[in-house]
């Protein structure tokens, strides 16, 4: 297909349609609303289901119901709305029905603002709903990647009977870029052995629930889910590497923070500084192993995020204190400029770095001029 100019949110909506989305349930919230608006036109046009729900709580439970029948279903929202969905997300995880969710993150906590942010990393990656469960979380940094990862998310959700969340910030959601859409896949309802779509004279009855009233059964279920997660960790880690071959400093950033960092890396390279970038695409499962290996041959890491250092802790876990890990973040809806990251690179190339101060504390001190 030829490249066309697509807005991130609309591109995600169309990509979902082409991936065989049969039902969408959502609620308006900036900076995500274009997904809902686009699908309000597109889905009925194709004879597919679109419902504007009364709230995100309603939306996620409609998603839950539809997912139980085995159709490809999705909802999308932005930070406050995703918080409201957490109840349903936990139930969906406990019921093991494939579900795709999109979070176009904005500044928070609370009502915050509508500017791009990455403050929901922990909520997405480390849970947010109650109980033991792990969703797959994909983080695109461009409109093209948003398209590709949306399509992938339906396949992964079904493959592992899991929740697959695409998290992006308002930048990727709102910007327009040339991108290529995939071919339209026909709507195809897989005949899963768990589809709860009525017996129809063909089979025994089926029940889908997240209840395991006997704690031993619940424990077994949790362990089974955990083992499935190990398979996901072994097979589905995705990340992009830039200039890593001879890198002495490695930046780790996802989504827009990763993309802005790449600009800084390119400039630094022109200046002869050996710096590279690892941009996680799956922030869950997290590329621990890749970072673990890198930490054996590089001098230092710089984690860049549009939050107060949430992924930072996962990087630190992978690096295990072998080399210094520094942090640079902007938050609350502020997007860092490449220059800011470039000066961090310059600083790191110049001074001797230690591991005794927590990188967040050191960064906070450097940020003192703002606070």
């Amino acid at each position: 297909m030829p490249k066309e100019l697509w807005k991130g949110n609309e591109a995600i909506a169309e990509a979902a349609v082409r991936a065989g989305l049969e039902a969408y349930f959502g609620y308006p919230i900036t900076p995500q609303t274009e997904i809902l608006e686009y699908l309000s036109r597109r889905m009925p046009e194709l004879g597919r289901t679109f419902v504007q729900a009364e709230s995100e709580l309603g939306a996620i439970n409609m998603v839950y119901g539809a997912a139980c029948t085995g159709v490809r279903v999705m909802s999308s929202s932005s930070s406050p709305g995703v918080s409201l969905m957490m109840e349903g997300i936990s139930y969906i995880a406990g019921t093991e029905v494939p579900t795709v969710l999109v979070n176009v993150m904005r500044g928070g906590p609370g009502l915050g603002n509508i500017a791009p942010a990455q403050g929901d990393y922990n909520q997405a990656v480390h849970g947010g709903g109650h109980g033991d469960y792990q969703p797959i979380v994909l983080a695109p940094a461009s409109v093209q990647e948003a398209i590709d990862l949306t399509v992938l998310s339906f396949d992964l959700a079904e493959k592992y009977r899991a929740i697959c969340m695409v998290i992006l910030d308002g930048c990727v959601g709102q910007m327009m870029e040339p991108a290529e859409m995939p071919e339209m896949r026909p709507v195809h309802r897989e005949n899963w052995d768990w589809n709860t779509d009525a017996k129809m004279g063909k089979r025994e009855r089926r029940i889908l629930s997240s209840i395991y009233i006997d704690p031993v059964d619940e424990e077994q279920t949790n362990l089974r889910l955990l083992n499935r997660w190990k398979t996901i960790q072994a097979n589905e880690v995705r990340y992009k590497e830039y200039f890593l071959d001879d890198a002495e400093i490695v930046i780790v950033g996802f989504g827009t923070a990763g993309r802005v960092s790449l600009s800084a890396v390119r400039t630094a390279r022109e200046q002869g500084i050996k710096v590279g970038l690892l941009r996680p695409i799956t922030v869950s499962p997290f590329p621990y192993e890749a970072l673990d290996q890198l930490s054996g041959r590089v001098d230092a890491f710089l984690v860049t995020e549009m939050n107060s250092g949430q992924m930072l802790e996962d990087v630190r876990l992978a690096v295990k204190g072998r080399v210094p890990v520094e942090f640079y973040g902007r938050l609350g809806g502020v997007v860092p400029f490449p220059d800011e990251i470039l000066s961090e690179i310059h600083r790191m190339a110049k001074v001797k770095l230690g591991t005794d101060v927590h990188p967040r504390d050191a960064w906070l001190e450097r940020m003192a001029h703002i606070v």
Partner: protein
Amino acid sequence: MATENLVYDRPEGFTDTPTHYCPGCTHGVAHRLVAEVLEEMGVIEKTIGVAPVGCSVFAYNYFDTDFVEAPHGRAPAMATGVKRVMPDRIVFTYQGDGDLASIGMGEIVHAAARGENITVIFINNANYGMTGGQMAPTTLPGMKTTSSPNGRDVETQGYPIKVSEMLSTLDGVGYCVRRSLHDPKNIRLAKKAIRMAFETQARGLGFSMVELLSTCPTNWGMTPVNSLKFVEEHMIPFYPLGDYKISDAIKQIKI
């Protein structure tokens, strides 16, 4: 020669699992009526139930149909999701008054307002049975519960919600009636209403709900017989039985 006449049997809509309800609880009666109606309409094979959170949380064990289990109060939203992608199926929720009229008020009102073609069986027993008898939105003024130990004081604890009256104001509602399960005559009337509600759905005539005044002997601290009397003497005067909305198209249905 003596002939044997079978006058009572488990309806086909039931599985063989005995229910877990307390002795004298009318949840069991309501279940049976639903199962009989599904059997009589011949729709067991194409029915998907949505269980609530409340004493009827295990409803999915008793009906011989597919079932999904909703979070507390969200059954109407879940049923919306199921029905929208499976429009030719029969989809019903079975919900208590805490589930439907408190935590799930948003979901029920909007499912009704959208005119979702689902059937709701609403069990009004004036308290939260499952969690041990706390005050529900439907608890009568002055009624003692474990969280209104001095009797519901409407000044501080608000007034009961009359759900059927409220939902009947919505255009999406096709069928909305209140019945009671306190004696055989009323049980028969309740069954008729449940049938009409499912017929409404089968014909695509909009949202249908039957509110059933029900007992909770355990938490009311009464014998089953006194509980039935309580329904008749105290609940019915506050929650009048009747047809709150039956759309013209539904009035034409002959069964």
